[in-house]
């Protein structure tokens, strides 16, 4: 859906730039004052179009937070898995774009696990998760100089206890901006 809108939008922009704004809008033969006012009005309409496009994704708070950049993020993982969920890829892409545009910005990716099992094995599992997120940033072109990976394994739980809920919120990678600009 989104990519269709992208194509339409950019297609329109190309057409407009190639053929000249005013002739496309059919305003060539009018009174110059009315003409400029109408052009201004049409341009204002296009400007609004750009605005709507940028905020179209923010239909609910949590997704807006995930997409916003620079913004610290928490990405959650399934038990014993290091695969990054598809839902998070757009968020990671947003952070990547910001990092590409802001060469002095730095992020740390902190890998974590739930508290069960061997502590040292959990450090390794946490690192695996953080490295998977780092990989997506790097695939977007972000330099390793802007990314720091550290795994705390089970040593910095977000929630204490032995409930499934506690386990779930501990299996996470925290993306934190150590420097924003």
């Amino acid at each position, binding site marked *: 859906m989104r990519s269709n809108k992208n194509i339409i939008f950019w297609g329109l922009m190309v057409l407009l730039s190639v053929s000249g704004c005013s002739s496309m809008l059919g305003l060539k033969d009018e009174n110059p004052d009315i003409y400029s006012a109408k052009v201004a009005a049409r341009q204002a309409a296009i400007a609004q179009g750009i605005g709507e496009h940028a905020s179209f994704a923010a239909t609910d708070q949590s997704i807006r937070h995930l997409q916003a950049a620079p913004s610290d993020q928490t990405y959650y993982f399934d038990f014993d898995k290091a695969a990054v969920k598809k839902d998070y890829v757009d968020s990671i892409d947003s952070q990547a774009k910001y990092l590409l545009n802001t060469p002095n910005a730095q992020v740390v990716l902190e890998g974590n696990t739930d508290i069960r099992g*061997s502590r040292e094995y959990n450090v390794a599992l946490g690192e695996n998760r953080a490295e998977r997120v780092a990989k997506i940033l790097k695939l977007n072109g972000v330099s390793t100089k802007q990314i720091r990976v550290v795994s705390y394994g089970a040593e910095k739980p977000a929630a204490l206890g032995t409930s499934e809920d506690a386990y779930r919120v501990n299996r996470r990678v925290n993306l934190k901006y150590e420097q924003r600009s």
Partner: protein
Amino acid sequence: MMVNQACRGFLLFFVVCFTGLAHASLNLELTQGIDAAIPIAIVPFKGNDTLSQIIQTDLQNSGHFKVMAKQEIEAFPASPDDVNFAYWKKTGVNALVVGKIDSQGDNYQVTFSILDVFHGSDPQNQVTNTKVFTVKKADIRQLAHHLSDLVYEQLTGEKGIFSTRIAYVLIEHPQGMPTKYALVVADVDGFNPKPLLISDEPIMSPSWSPDGRELAYVSFENNRAEIYRSEVASGKRELLTSYPGINGAPAWSPDGQKLAIVLSKSGYPKIYTYDLSTKLLSQITQGSSIDTEPSFAPDGNSLVFTSDRGGSPQIYQVNLSDFDIQRLTFDGSYNSSASYTSDGKNLVLLHRDGGLFNIAILDLGSGKVTNLTHSGLSESPSVAPNGKMVLYGSLYGGSGILGIVSVDGQVRLQLPSRDGDVQGPVWSPYA
């Protein structure tokens, strides 16, 4: 680095004074003893009964002795000449410990005897063991533990562990303040805890040197994993490794020359050895698996380690001469945290069964795995130097506590802490 060390040293001093960590204590509680416990009486020593109290607690907590309650003692011999064997035989005890303490300035002179009551009334077969010690008054607890070792060895034939120590990580959550982590060394009964390191960031995986004088461990104090060694007596420390990625699971070699460690600088967590004199690294395992938790065999020629190269965490052994690797565990989908008993015949490890994580013992001859704990919330097993007891971490009532269980599963003790969560315990070598 030097200035940082000095600042941290000062901080350590400050924090010890103000957090009251110096008074922290683990409370050792026997929860189960063996059926065939040896009946014994420890008569309060003439002059001061502190020593006899400690010996009584040590032997009772070993689970191998049924110690006569202090209030039941009606005769108070201080030396073998005062002992009425007929009377003591009637009380049902097999052995008797008597003694006396004389104060001499800053020292105590302690005379102590172990008597075999069973054969005692026959002068021909009387078995008595009398020793005299002079100790500084401050060292009285240590002497008491040594006397417990002597009693234990004489009556069970096995070496006692009462003079050994434990190290563990203490985590405090002070109200409205950031979490505090400490690496603590204490007597095996939980007394005299002393923090070796206090930090705002996690500490993990302590490992004793074979001479019992140092600990290697992982610290996140610089917001990354690093391996340090610390001299227990002086607190002097040295940063050993700070490579990119994981620096973890240090394990001392039996000859004290090397550490086996985990580094992920190659892209995956692998086992290396690190020579403590030359500082040279030697990569031991290869590949794209997670390899971690190395532990030397008693002869130093091989290591066991945890690896998911087969799909899930299992225990493997690697020969340090030819790097040949054998898988050792086949029971269950998760086995980790393995170390040898001192006779090299068993591995003590963490074993998952149906979602429950318990400490288990693997008989390397038969391949049989037997659970030693049953709560399902266990971690970090560490074997005592006499190979008979295992120290481990557990969750109990939402708190991290330590437990001790004998390798036959018959003796169980708990060590909850008053001050926070305790985890990652390791048993020292013999003193």
